[in-house]
């Protein structure tokens, strides 16, 4: 792929704008509250788009196009089943507790609802995961630029890290959120013409139907048996593992995305943020998954669209989007496409760094190192945490380059920590008898169960490091099953220990638990502006999509 002056000019203009946003906002950032929480003053349309954009990192953009080619339309389950319902649940049922409790972060909610040790366990795990994910984003960006454009690996890492650092350091969370919205539009508008050109070349949807195997063009049809669909998953693990445990665990408890709703101007906007974000989310497969399916049709119809192979001899599906850019985009719009890819990497990195600096400052530093510092003190701690977060990300990127297996292992460990998390929040919010000891040991046992299940089962040659007691059809199926098993164990242990330990007094749980919190009345509001009815509308559209592509 060869870029020309016009392409470099577009990339340079993008860099000028993202850094410019940081400088413009610099004057407005004067306290820790401004820097780490945007003073809870961000308009609804921005929080909604930032909510979805924080999740629109490189793994999403490149990874979903790759999954589209590998698994076909079954990939849309990550959106229609694995996102929409959880986002609506967050908005309607959970946001009142996060926002209403005045917690500054998700771990802080755990402190208010349970105790310090549960918060600390979650805060350390989350902080480590965010800087690690940020480093992986950086590594993936530099690798991709090296492979497709021949750019220097070190230069790509340092330039991207410097740009992200400058705009976060200047404008804090507001700058990251503003840039996420710009990045959202750039990713959508930069990749949409690619989808249009690809569809035009293969002869529209009819061309896809004629050139792609039928079993890759359904959403539910092959889920009766793992051997009937390319993902190798059965309906139960898809619905309960992905649709419930993993989806709710990510969208309802991951501070990286929840933080975008928590900086809304008021509770009503905070509730609407994930619900409005669910609208572009259910349409996003057209931008991120369809290119993978178009690639399959192009491969069948034309020559020259072959994917490179990995060291194992398998097709390298991660190259789907770069190859489509190379083949379908001329110079000019190619610069926009490459900028969209860079934007997705930077968006993922900035989201992680801003979540890290908040959790570090409020949940680790203020909680364990200096309790009664001034607002200015925590402002500087937040800034130093930003520097540290970026530097650790750079280090992680270099570690990833040298020891790819360590990164896979770390990713696996973090997925074990995340799997049971929703059980803790769900019980905490909806069962007033849940105790801090129950929550803490439930989390520990859930994480241990996830690890053990991986050690006792095998899929695609992975896992089974204790014994091989069961073989799953695919790695995806193994991950979905690990999730629901650890969830169930977390629920059982949390309930059992809660029943034999002393709960918090009810007066301390007002605003934190559903049954003890006064219900809001929306009598003055127009019905379609009510978060519940908005959620029902989005859900109906999602169901219709599922029926159309059954």
């Amino acid at each position, binding site marked *: 792929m060869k870029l020309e002056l*016009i392409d470099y000019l577009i990339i340079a203009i993008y860099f000028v704008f993202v850094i*410019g*946003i940081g400088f*413009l906002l610099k004057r407005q950032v004067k306290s820790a509250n401004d820097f780490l929480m945007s003073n809870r003053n961000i308009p609804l349309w921005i929080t909604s788009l930032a909510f979805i954009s924080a999740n629109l990192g490189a793994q999403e953009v490149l990874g979903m196009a790759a999954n589209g080619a590998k698994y076909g339309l079954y990939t849309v389950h990550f959106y229609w089943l694995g996102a929409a319902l959880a986002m609506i649940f967050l908005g309607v049922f959970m946001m009142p507790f996060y926002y209403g409790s005045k917690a500054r972060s998700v771990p802080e909610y755990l402190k208010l609802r349970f105790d310090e040790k549960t918060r600390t366990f979650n805060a350390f795990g989350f902080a480590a995961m965010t800087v690690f994910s940020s480093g992986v984003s950086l590594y993936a960006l530099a690798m991709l630029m090296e492979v497709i454009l021949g750019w220097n690996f070190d230069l790509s890492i340092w330039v991207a890290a410097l740009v992200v650092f400058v705009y976060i350091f200047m404008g804090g969370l507001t700058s990251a959120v*503003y840039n996420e919205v*710009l990045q959202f539009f750039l990713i959508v508008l930069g990749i949409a013409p690619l989808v249009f050109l690809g569809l035009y070349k293969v002869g529209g949807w009819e061309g896809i139907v004629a050139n792609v195997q039928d079993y890759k063009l359904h959403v539910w049809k092959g889920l009766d048996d793992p051997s009937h669909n390319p993902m190798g998953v059965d309906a139960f693990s898809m619905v309960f593992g992905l649709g419930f445990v993993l989806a709710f665990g990510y969208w309802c408890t991951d501070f990286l995305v929840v933080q975008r709703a928590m900086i809304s101007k008021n509770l009503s906007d905070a509730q609407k943020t994930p619900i409005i974000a669910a609208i572009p989310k259910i349409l996003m497969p057209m931008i991120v998954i369809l290119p993978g399916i178009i690639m399959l049709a192009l491969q069948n119809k034309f020559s020259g669209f072959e994917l490179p192979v990995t060291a194992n001899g398998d097709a390298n599906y991660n190259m789907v989007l770069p190859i489509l850019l190379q083949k379908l985009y*001329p110079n000019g*719009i190619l610069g*926009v496409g490459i900028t969209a890819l860079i934007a997705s990497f930077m968006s993922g990195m900035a989201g992680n760094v801003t979540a890290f600096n908040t959790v570090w400052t409020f949940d680790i530093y203020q909680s364990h190192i200096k309790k009664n510092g001034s607002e200015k003190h925590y402002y500087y701690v937040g800034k130093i945490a930003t520097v540290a977060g970026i530097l650790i990300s750079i280090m992680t990127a270099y570690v990833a380059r040298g020891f790819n297996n360590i990164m896979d292992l770390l990713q696996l460990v973090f997925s074990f920590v995340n799997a049971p998390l929703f059980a803790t929040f769900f019980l905490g919010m909806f069962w007033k008898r849940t105790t801090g000891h129950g929550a803490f040991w439930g989390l520990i046992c859930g994480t241990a169960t996830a690890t053990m299940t991986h050690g006792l089962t095998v899929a695609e040659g992975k896992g089974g490091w204790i014994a091989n007691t069961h073989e799953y059809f695919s790695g995806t199926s193994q991950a979905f099953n690990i999730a629901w098993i650890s969830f169930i164990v977390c629920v059982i242990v949390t309930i059992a220990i809660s029943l034999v330990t002393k709960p918090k007094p009810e007066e301390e749980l007002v605003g934190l638990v559903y049954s003890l919190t006064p219900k809001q009345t929306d009598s003055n509001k127009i019905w379609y502006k009510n978060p519940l009815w908005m959620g029902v509308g989005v859900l109906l559209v999602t169901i219709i999509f599922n029926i159309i592509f059954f």
Partner: protein
Amino acid sequence: MNKLYDLRIVIGIFFLIIGFLLMGYAFLSDGSLEENNKINLYCGLLFSSFGLLMLLLKTKRKKNN
């Protein structure tokens, strides 16, 4: 300067610039690459229209206020 704090202005200006660049590039490029020029031209029109829309949204909101 305060005007620039509104994100719609920033996004509007960004896409207007990119749109005009693509259109300009399409007009100035070698005519033998007609298909490529058309892609850049249409994308340029799409981007500048979107940029304009963002700016108009900002203006409309200001009038309503």
